[in-house]
């Protein structure tokens, strides 16, 4: 099976007044059709910048591609002209975001916004010459597909009349309009209450299974990733430090940062396991630490870690770790 998405040695920098921030420092990731991959990490690790790269949504400048390729099917996204990119964006690759309210126009009815999205799609080319009614019927179909009741009434509603959970469902419905092969979800449930989050996670899981979608889900919440993704990549300061099947990573993380991250999560079912913080704080990316970017916070760091950037290597089948000292 050939990969749907292949990211190779992708480096992205942001030019700022204070200097150049090396925000993504050599990302390698692969995603096949129908696969689910979670990206976890803390603030500033570059996970959202990576997600936005797949749709070329990072403003350039200040962002600047330093090196690498992002192959989607057989095209390198990084080298596609904007016009060609527009054929992919929201179609073969769709994206949903953390704050659904800011991606809906408050002045337009849900129906109007969905019809616009549908009529903008290639797959809706057949509808383009037809009246809005066809697009409206398709919109109602999509709303039903994401489990929203009374689609017809919803189409006439405005965003403020909807709860946060309903808005996110509407955006998921719009993302489905282009019949995507890849859904990029950037913190899709972070703004939602926990009972509603559970509903949206169940919806995403159902859509992935039914439609054979590939999913890249970005989250700071390991629980959300565990619920949604078969594989997970842990990012720290612009690099992927460990990639593994989700269950294996959570049971036995091999990279010191992945270990620290998991140990920091308070466990509702085992309150006697005290969450452990990671000493120090996230490094600046304008002058990142030499060698391994995690070394100033790592208790196992040696001279080699300060000198030499560890390359990610496969320690076990399907498990790779960027650490000089990790052992299987």
């Amino acid at each position, binding site marked *: 099976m050939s990969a749907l998405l292949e990211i190779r040695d992708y480096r992205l920098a942001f030019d700022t007044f204070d200097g150049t921030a090396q925000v993504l420092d050599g990302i390698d990731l692969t995603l096949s059709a129908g696969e689910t991959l979670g990206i976890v990490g803390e603030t500033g690790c570059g996970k959202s910048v990576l997600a936005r790269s797949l749709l070329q949504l990072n403003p350039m400048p200040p962002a600047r591609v330093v090196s690498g390729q992002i192959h989607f099917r057989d095209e390198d996204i990084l080298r596609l002209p904007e016009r060609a990119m527009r054929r992919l964006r929201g179609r073969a690759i769709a994206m949903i975001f953390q704050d659904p309210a800011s991606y809906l126009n408050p002045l337009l009815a849900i129906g109007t916004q969905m019809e616009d999205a549908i009529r903008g799609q290639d797959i809706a080319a057949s509808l383009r010459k037809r009246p809005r009614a066809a697009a409206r019927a398709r919109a109602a179909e999509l709303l039903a597909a994401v489990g929203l009741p009374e689609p017809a009434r919803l189409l006439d509603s405005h965003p403020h009349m909807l709860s946060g959970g309903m808005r996110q469902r509407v955006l998921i419905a719009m993302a489905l309009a282009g019949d995507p092969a890849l859904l990029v979800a950037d913190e899709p449930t972070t703004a939602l*209450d*926990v009972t509603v989050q559970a509903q949206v996670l*169940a919806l995403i899981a159902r859509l992935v299974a039914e439609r054979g979608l590939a999913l890249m889900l970005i989250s700071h919440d390991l629980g959300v990733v565990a619920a949604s993704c078969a594989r997970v990549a842990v990012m720290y300061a612009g690099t992927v430090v460990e990639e593994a099947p989700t269950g294996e990573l959570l049971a036995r993380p091999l990279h010191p940062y992945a270990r620290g991250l998991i140990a*920091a999560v308070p466990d*509702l079912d085992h309150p006697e396991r005290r969450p452990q*913080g990671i000493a120090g704080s996230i490094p600046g990316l304008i002058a990142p630490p030499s060698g391994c970017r995690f070394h100033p916070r790592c208790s196992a760091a040696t001279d080699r870690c300060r000198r030499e950037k560890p390359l990610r290597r496969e320690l076990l089948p399907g498990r790779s770790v960027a650490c000089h000292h990790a052992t299987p």
Partner: protein
Amino acid sequence: MTEPLLRAEGLSRSFEGRRRLFHETPRVRAVAELNLTLDRGTALGIVGESGCGKSTLARLLLRLIPLSDGRIIFDGRDITALDESAMRPLRRRMQLIHQNPSAALDPRLSAEDAVAEPLRIHGVASGQALRDRVAALLAEVGLPSAFLHRFPHELSGGQKQRVCIARALALEPDLLVLDEPTSALDVSVQAQILDVLDALRARRGLAYLFISHNLAVVRQVCERVAVMYLGRIVEEGSAAEVLGTPRHPYTRALLESVPRLGANQAPPAAPGEPPNPASPPSGCAFHPRCALAVAACRAAMPPLVTLGDGHRLRCPRVG
């Protein structure tokens, strides 16, 4: 029995909705007939989803917003009707920590000035004594003297929250109200702040009213937990019981919805969403989402019943 540090009786607060000509002005009951007590040196967690009234409750208890009805007793003294000048000496003893430390700090004050400000205003210390005191407070929350002259933009989120805690401690309060104190922080930093809070409570005998939507965090910090739904407490008891063996259907739904690290599927989801406080369901507010609901649940609000060992439960359908 000794008097609790804080007691609320029949606490209510409604807000007026938007006025419309020829329509009755709608009223939103953010907090309704709420009773709770907080003992000295203990931590009570308030959990619930957005719109349940937990932040309104915090502001009411601190007398930051007026109440519609009820009484607040702080350290044996009825503070419900105290005016601002009478409240002022009491304000030293009750402090609030906000969710977003970046918004809580003045960007033009260094860490030292931010912590010194309340001490200056209350005339507690000045000169070298003031500087020593500030340095000691910052050290107590884990910020060495190198941080004294840093401004908020030179601090990380966790460091800013430490400054806020030091500032709240400056006047030696008995009560800290913490409104989602770690929700804006990364998980590795959250663990550090929880350690700071635990150490402070042990050392200073502080009482915490700890508001959070994160049940696992509340389980770490608090001995007791109250679960709120649409302005009312639906279950209250020891953290081990409420979060370990929940009884109210809403508490159960809340706990089940939390994605667990060990699970490899989406958590089971209760149907529906938290209701709109402007048009609450009849009877028990949770009935439209509850699998156990019967006609009686739609007809009347069930009372909050005290079971053995101080466990309180608002649901006649469970035991």
